C-alpha cells in the first residue's frame, strides 16, 4: 500500500535470485554418492512414522492401520520395509493344519502347532499309514490270529453243520429226505435213494399218509427255527472275529502310534488327534486288509487309493517353509486369495472335496504378523472388503465359498473349523479412499483406528538437503546405478523442489525420483561416462518432457501460426493475457489465454459467458461473483452500477475452472470501462478477494514458462513478462532458459500484492488511492473508471426520465437503466 500511497505504479520485478533456488553441490559435503553409506530411514515423515510406531505397538482390537498418501510416495515399499526391519511379528506364529474330524467328517479340525511341527506331523502320519498297511495285514497273517479266526470259522461252520445234520438224521429216522430247492429246503418221504414218486405215495394207506404229513409238518417247523438261528450265529461269529481283529491290531497300532506320539511331546492337540486316529483305524481295519480284485476287469472299481486320505495332514500354514517374514503382502486380494478356498476334484463326472483340498488365504499366511494390502485392490475385488472386515471383527477366519456365504449352494460341503486371527492389517491407499470409507462405512473407523498420513513434501533446509542426498545415494546403490556426482545430486534436489512446486520444499515422492535416477544413469551410459553428472539429470528431465509434450507443442504452434490469437506486443483495451494450466497424464504445462471484457449500459451485473454456456466451473463462477462484489464496493458505494459487463475466455472450447484468472478478468473489465489499453506483452495470473488483494495460485512455474515459450516463439522484445501473486514468489523454481532470459533482461517476472499494483503495471497508469473526500486522483486509472461509471449512471437516469416522458418510446431499451437508476434514487 505504501507504493500506492506514493502514487507511483511501481513495478515489482522479482530478483533473478528468487526465480530458482539453487542447491549448492559443495554444501552437500561429498564428491560422488560412492562416498555415502546406505541409509534407508524414511525422511521427512516424522508424523507418519510416529503413527506407524503407535499402530504397530498397540495390541488392542481395531488398531489396524490405514496408510494414506499419493502413489508416488512408494507407500507400499516404505511400509513393508519399516515392518520388516522392525523385527518380530505382533504375536507368536504357529503352523496351522487341517485334519479329518472323525466325529463330524464335514467339519475338519484345525490344529495349531509350533513352527515346523506341522510338516513333521504330516510326514509322521504318512509314514505311520504306510507302515500300518503292511503291519496290520502282517498281524492278520500271524499264526495266532489265523488260528483264532479259523477256530471261529470252524465253530460257526460246525454249528450249522450240526443243526442241518440233526435235521437230516431226524428226517432219516422217519424215512424222510432233506432236499435243496432253488430257494430253500424241503422234506419228502423217501423210497430207495430218491423221493417217493407221487403215484407210489397215492398207493399208501391213509394212516401212513397222515403220519408222513404230521412228521413233515414238525420237520418243516424245525427247519424254520434252524434257519432263523443262522443270522444270529453269523452275527455272533462276525462280532467275535471283529473283537479278535481289534485285539490283534491294537498291539501293532499302539506301538506304532506311540512312536509318533513320542516325537511330539507336550502337544495335547496331537495327542488328542492320535487317539482319535487310533479309534478310527480300529473301527475300519478292513481298509488295511488286502483288497480283493474283481473278476471282471470291466466292472472293476477304481482302486480305492483315497481310503487312507482321512489320516493325512493338510499343512495350511508352514512357518518352516515360509520365508520367515512376518510381513505378508497380497498383491491380488480376491476373496479366495484373502480368505482361502476349498478346492474340488472331478471324480467320475462329480466334484468332490475333502479337508486336504482346503487352501490357505493371505489371512492365514499372515497370521501372527502383518498383512499389507492395497486398499483400492481390496475394494475393487468383489466381496473382499466385507470378508476382511468380517474376519477382523470376529477375530477369526472361516473358509466359506461364495456360494455358501450367499446361500446359493445347499449341497453338503466342508465347514472347516475357524482359525483364530492374531494379526494387524495394514491398508495402503489414496487419501480419497480413506476419507470416503470413513464417511460411508460405519465399520471402517472401528476397525482401522490408526491413520498413517504421509507428507507429500518436506521443508527444504541444509539438513534436509543432506538427508535427501543420502536418500539419492541409497537409491543409486540399491538400483545398482553409476555413482552420481554432487552436482547431479544437487540437480535432483532442485527437481524435487520443482516437483513440490515450492522453492522452500522438497517432494517426498521417491518413485519418480528413482525413475529420474535410472534415466539419468541411462544417459550417462549413452555417453559412456563412469559417473552421472548434472547434465545427465537435465537430459533425463528434458527427455521425459519431450516424450510427453506433443499436445503442448501443438498448442504453441497454434499460437505461433496465429490460429489461436495471443498478442505479445502492443496494447489493447479490454483484452488481457490470462494464464491457464493443463495436466495431461504426467505432464503439467501452462498456456496463455486471451480474456476479453466488454461493457454496456445495464443494471450492474457481470456476465460470465463461460458460466452461461455451462463451460465454467463453480470456482470460476465464484471468482466472477467476487469480481462483481469488488467492483460494487470500489466504484458503486454511492451510486448504483448502471452497466453490464461480459467476460469471456476467447477460443476456449472446453471447461474452465479455478479462480486464478480473477486479476486478469477484473483488469480487462476495468480497462474496458476506463478505455485504458492493456500491455499485451504481459500476462497475469492471480486470484482476488473482495478487498482487492491478490492471492496465490497453483502452477505458477508452468504458467510463467507457458507465456515465456509463446513470447520466445513470437520474438522476445525485452518488455515481456508475467505478473504473479507476491505470495507465489517462494514457489518459483523456473526453467533455466526462463531464468537466463530474465538475467539477460529480455523477460521479467513481477510480483503483485494488490489489484492496483497489477492495474498500474498492465496499463502503465497510476491506479490512484481514494482521498479524504472519497474521490480518486485525477488522471488515475481508478478515477477514469469511476468517471466512466458515473457517466453511464447519468445516461441511465436520463434514459429513464425520457422513458417516463414518452411512454412507449424507447421503453424496452431503457427499462434496465430505469430500474437501476430508480434503485439509486431510492437509496
Amino acid at each position, binding site marked *: 500500500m505504501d507504493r500506492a500511497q506514493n502514487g507511483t505504479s511501481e513495478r515489482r520485478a522479482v530478483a533473478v535470485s528468487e526465480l530458482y533456488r539453487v542447491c549448492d553441490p559443495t554444501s552437500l559435503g561429498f564428491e560422488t554418492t560412492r562416498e555415502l553409506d546406505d541409509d534407508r530411514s524414511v525422511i521427512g515423515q516424522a508424523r507418519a512414522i510416529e503413527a506407524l510406531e503407535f499402530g504397530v505397538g498397540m495390541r488392542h482390537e481395531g488398531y489396524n492401520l490405514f496408510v494414506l498418501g499419493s502413489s508416488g510416495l512408494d507407500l507400499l515399499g516404505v511400509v513393508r520395509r519399516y515392518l520388516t526391519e522392525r523385527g518380530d511379528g505382533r504375536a507368536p506364529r504357529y503352523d496351522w493344519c487341517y485334519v479329518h474330524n472323525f466325529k463330524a467328517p464335514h467339519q475338519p479340525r484345525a490344529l495349531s502347532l509350533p513352527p515346523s511341527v506341522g510338516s513333521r506331523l504330516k510326514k509322521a502320519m504318512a509314514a505311520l499309514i504306510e507302515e500300518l498297511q503292511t503291519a496290520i495285514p502282517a498281524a492278520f497273517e500271524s499264526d495266532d490270529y489265523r488260528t483264532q479266526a479259523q477256530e471261529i470259522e470252524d465253530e460257526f461252520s460246525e454249528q450249522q453243520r450240526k443243526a442241518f445234520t440233526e435235521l437230516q438224521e431226524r428226517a432219516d429216522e422217519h424215512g424222510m429226505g432233506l432236499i435243496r430247492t432253488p430257494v430253500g429246503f424241503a422234506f419228502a418221504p423217501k423210497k430207495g435213494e430218491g423221493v417217493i414218486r407221487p403215484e407210489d405215495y397215492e398207493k399208501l394207506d391213509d394212516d401212513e399218509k397222515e403220519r408222513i404229513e404230521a412228521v413233515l409238518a414238525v420237520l*418243516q417247523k424245525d427247519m424254520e427255527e434252524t*434257519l432263523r438261528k443262522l443270522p444270529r450265529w453269523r452275527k455272533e461269529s462276525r462280532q467275535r472275529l471283529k473283537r479278535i481283529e481289534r485285539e490283534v491290531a491294537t498291539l501293532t497300532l499302539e506301538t506304532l502310534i506311540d512312536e509318533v506320539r513320542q516325537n511330539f511331546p507336550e502337544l495335547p492337540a496331537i495327542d488328542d488327534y492320535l487317539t482319535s486316529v487310533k479309534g478310527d483305524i480300529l473301527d475300519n481295519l478292513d481298509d488295511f486288509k488286502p483288497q480283493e480284485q474283481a473278476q471282471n476287469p470291466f466292472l472293476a472299481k477304481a482302486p480305492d487309493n483315497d481310503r487312507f486320505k482321512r489320516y493325512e495332514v493338510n499343512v495350511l500354514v508352514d512357518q518352516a517353509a515360509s520365508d520367515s517374514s512376518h510381513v505378508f503382502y497380497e498383491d491380488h486380494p480376491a476373496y479366495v486369495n484373502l480368505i482361502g478356498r476349498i478346492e474340488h476334484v472331478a471324480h467320475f463326472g462329480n466334484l468332490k472335496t475333502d479337508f486336504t483340498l482346503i487352501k490357505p488365504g493371505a489371512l492365514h499366511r499372515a497370521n501372527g504378523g502383518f498383512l499389507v494390502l492395497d486398499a483400492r485392490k481390496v475394494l475393487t475385488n468383489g466381496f473382499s472388503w466385507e470378508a476382511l472386515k468380517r474376519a477382523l471383527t470376529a477375530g477369526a477366519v472361516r473358509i466359506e465359498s461364495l456360494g455358501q456365504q450367499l446361500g446359493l449352494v445347499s449341497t453338503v460341503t466342508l465347514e472347516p473349523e475357524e482359525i483364530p486371527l492374531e494379526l494387524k492389517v495394514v491398508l495402503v491407499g489414496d487419501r480419497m479412499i480413506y476419507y470416503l470409507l470413513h464417511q460411508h462405512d460405519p465399520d471402517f473407523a472401528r476397525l482401522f483406528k490408526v491413520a498413517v498420513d504421509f507428507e507429500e513434501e518436506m521443508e527444504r533446509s541444509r539438513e534436509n538437503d543432506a538427508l535427501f542426498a543420502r536418500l539419492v545415494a541409497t537409491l543409486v546403490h540399491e538400483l545398482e546405478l553409476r555413482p552420481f556426482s554432487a552436482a547431479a545430486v544437487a540437480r535432483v534436489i532442485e527437481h524435487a523442489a520443482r516437483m513440490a512446486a515450492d522453492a522452500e520444499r522438497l517432494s517426498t515422492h521417491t518413485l519418480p525420483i528413482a525413475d529420474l535416477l535410472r534415466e539419468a544413469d541411462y544417459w550417462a551410459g549413452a555417453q559412456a561416462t563412469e559417473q552421472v553428472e548434472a547434465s545427465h539429470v537435465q537430459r533425463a528431465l528434458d527427455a521425459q518432457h519431450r516424450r510427453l509434450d506433443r499436445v503442448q507443442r501443438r498448442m504453441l504452434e497454434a499460437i505461433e501460426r496465429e490460429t489461436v490469437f495471443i498478442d505479445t506486443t502492443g496494447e489493447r483495451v479490454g483484452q488481457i493475457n490470462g494464464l491457464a494450466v493443463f495436466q495431461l497424464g504426467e505432464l503439467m504445462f501452462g498456456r496463455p489465454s486471451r480474456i476479453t471484457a466488454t461493457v454496456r449500459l445495464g443494471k450492474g451485473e457481470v456476465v460470465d459467458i463461460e458460466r452461461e454456456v455451462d463451460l465454467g466451473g463453480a470456482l470460476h463462477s465464484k471468482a466472477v461473483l467476487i469480481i462483481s462484489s469488488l467492483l460494487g464496493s470500489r466504484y458503486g458505494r454511492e451510486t448504483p452500477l448502471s452497466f453490464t459487463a461480459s467476460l469471456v475466455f476467447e477460443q476456449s472450447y472446453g471447461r474452465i475452472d479455478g479462480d486464478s484468472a480473477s486479476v486478469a478478468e477484473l483488469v480487462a473489465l476495468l480497462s474496458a470501462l476506463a478505455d485504458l489499453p492493456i500491455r499485451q506483452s504481459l500476462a497475469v495470473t492471480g486470484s482476488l478477494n473482495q478487498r482487492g488483494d491478490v492471492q496465490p495460485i497453483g502452477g505458477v512455474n508452468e504458467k510463467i514458462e507457458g507465456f515465456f515459450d509463446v513470447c520466445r516463439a513470437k520474438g522476445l522484445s525485452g518488455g515481456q513478462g508475467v505478473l504473479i501473486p507476491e505470495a507465489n514468489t517462494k514457489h518459483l523454481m523456473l526453467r533455466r532458459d526462463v531464468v537466463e532470459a530474465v538475467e539477460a533482461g529480455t523477460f521479467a517476472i513481477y510480483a503483485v500484492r494488490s489489484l492496483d499494483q497489477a492495474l498500474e503495471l498492465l496499463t502503465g497508469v497510476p491506479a490512484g488511492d481514494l482521498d479524504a473526500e472519497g474521490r480518486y486522483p485525477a488522471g488515475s486509472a481508478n478515477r477514469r473508471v469511476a468517471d466512466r461509471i458515473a457517466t453511464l449512471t447519468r445516461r441511465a437516469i436520463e434514459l429513464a426520465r425520457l422513458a417516463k416522458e414518452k411512454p412507449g418510446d424507447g421503453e424496452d431499451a431503457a427499462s434496465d437503466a430505469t430500474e437501476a437508476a430508480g434503485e439509486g434514487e431510492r437509496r
Partner: protein
Amino acid sequence: MREDVLIRRIVVALDASRHSSDALRAAIDLARQTNAEIVGLFIEDENLLRLAGLPFAREVMSSAVQRKFDAASVERSLRASAAHLARELQRAAEPHHLRWRFVVARGNVDEQLLEAEKDADLLVIGQAGRRSHHVIEPGDTAVRVAAQATKTVLVQHPVLQRNQTLLIVFDGSPRAWRALNTAAKLRPRGRGELVLLTPPQEEIDRTQLDAELQLWCDENQLSARRVQLLDLDVKHLVSLVRRHHACGLVLSGERSDYPESAVRELLRQLSCPVLFVR
C-alpha cells in the same frame, strides 16, 4: 515225461446258482486255453419234480418262511432256468469263437453228472453248498462227483485268490506227470510259479526227479520248484495251500485215493479251486 494231454470237450454243470456262474467262467477260460468244445449241462432234478407232485409239498425258504411247492411252478421255473442258462453260455462262448452246446437232462443230479463226465475230457462243477459269512460248505453233489468221477474234474471255488501260485501234488509217477501236464495245458504261460509237493516216499529218486523236472520246465517255459511234503493228509495239504496263498491245488490219483469224506474235508477247508486229474 512229456505227454500230450488232449482236452477236446469240457462239460460244465450249470444251475441257477452263483457257483454255477463261477464254474461257467472258469470253463470258458479253460476252453479258450485248450480250444475245446464247451458243453453246458443243465439237470432237472427228478427229486424236485417228484416232490412237487406230492399233495403236501412245501418248501422252507432261506428266509425261514414256508410256501407251497407245486409241480407247475417247478416245471415253469426249470424251463426258465434252462433258457436263461443257455443264453448265458451263448453270451460267454461266442465272443471267443468257442464251439458250444447246451444240454438239458432230467434225473438224479449225481448220476447224470457222472454219466456226462464219461464223454468229457474235463468236468467243471461249482462248489455248491450253503454259504455263510466265512465258510462255504461243499455241496453233496460236488463232493460225490469229485470222489467218484473217472475223468478229470475241476471244482471251482467262488473266492478268487490274488496269488498265482499253483500247488501240485507230485510223486513222479506217470499219473503225477499227467497231472503236471494237464495243469500246464490248462494254465496260461507266465502265470506265477508251480510248487510241486512231493510226498515222503522213500522210493522216490529225488535227484533224478529234479533233473527231469528241470528239463520239463525248460520245455514248457514254466518255472517250478519242489517242496517236500511231510505228510499226505488233508490237514497238512490245507495248511500248505494256505501258507502259499495258492490259487489252486492239483491232485492226481485213482478214485480210491480220495474217499468222499476226505474230499469233503478238503473242499470244506480250502478257499481255492481243486483239480482232480484222472
